[in-house]
């Protein structure tokens, strides 16, 4: 799923301070599940903003609505009821949702309340970890289902670098938390599967044009 984290409150305060009536919009799918942008978080954020502006002159008012998915243009146009006099929307969706709202409400500024951070999975209750960067040319068949594009800090394709130690990446010391070496995990997994020969195969260079190098990507189903 898409994982987002809420921006620092003061950054949001600064973004909305020039408006009078702000609609805070939660999103009911990915960011609800990762506990950062659902209805509860939208209400909590509105309350926090109310509190922040309580001692200021002409504070903005904050209404809250949540829609199941902010990335569905027709849903938004049909079902999201914007209160009268709303002069800005504060969205708790990912970047796709924010941009969809902006596309539908052409005359309203749409402000992100989250930083969209990664495509991840729930590894433990309350802990989401990055798994995929959406590179558009999946190589998981050859890497034991573990992605070096997402999990290796250097995006290496030919095995571990010299910065790996006891299965951990050298960035662990820099960022202050232990990070597994992606290639340590890949080799361990291929060994378990009896497919270590996959590691020794020489492959064509990866097609990076399938990532954003060739511009925004699109998927169109016809017929």
């Amino acid at each position: 799923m898409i994982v987002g984290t809420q921006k620092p409150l003061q950054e949001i305060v600064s973004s909305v301070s020039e408006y009078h009536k702000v609609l805070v919009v939660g999103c009911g799918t990915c960011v609800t599940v990762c506990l950062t942008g659902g209805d509860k978080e939208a209400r909590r954020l509105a309350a926090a903003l109310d509190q922040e502006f309580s001692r200021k002159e002409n504070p903005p008012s904050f209404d809250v609505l949540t829609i199941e998915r902010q990335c569905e243009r027709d849903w938004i146009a049909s079902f999201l009821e914007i209160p009268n006099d709303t002069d800005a929307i504060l969205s708790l969706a990912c970047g796709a949702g924010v941009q969809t709202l902006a596309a539908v409400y052409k005359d309203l500024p749409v402000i992100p309340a989250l930083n969209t951070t990664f495509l991840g999975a729930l590894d433990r209750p309350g802990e989401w970890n990055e798994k995929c960067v959406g590179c558009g040319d999946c190589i998981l068949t050859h890497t034991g289902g573990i992605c070096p594009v997402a999990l290796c800090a250097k995006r290496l394709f030919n095995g571990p670098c010299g910065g790996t130690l006891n299965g951990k990446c050298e960035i662990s010391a820099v960022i202050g938390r232990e990070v597994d070496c992606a290639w340590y995990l890949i080799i361990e997994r291929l060994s378990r599967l009896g497919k270590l020969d996959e590691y020794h195969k020489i492959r064509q260079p990866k097609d990076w044009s399938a990532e954003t190098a060739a511009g925004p990507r699109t998927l169109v189903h016809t017929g």
Partner: protein
Amino acid sequence: MSFFKVNEKCNGCLACVQNCPAGALNYMDKDASRKIYHNLSLCARCGNCWRICPQAAIDFQQLLRGGWDEVIEMELIHCMVCGEPVYTTGVGKTLSEKLEREVAALCPEHKKSFPLNTWKRIAQGRGLHTGNGK
């Protein structure tokens, strides 16, 4: 049918209600009883309820697999030649209205292979329906 099911271990502690990120679980205490409610439209099916339930009382598999609720039942029109269902009487009526003529009930296979009157004669010979399911 209910998509959210709990087993006999549920003791009504409300951990699921308090921890549902989508606000899809609720409860009501009235007189001597507590009722727990689930709203499938709000449910993100994230599994948080199942994950945190201290009693292991939630049958999350039921919520994932679900079941089919009947939405509506309608009368069908069948192909006048082979009896294959082709559309509902409602669709036949809409088609006839839009085209301003009676639409012959033919499946894709029999629609264009012979002139319509030929099929009508064959169908009458077989004692099959010859139009709009009648």
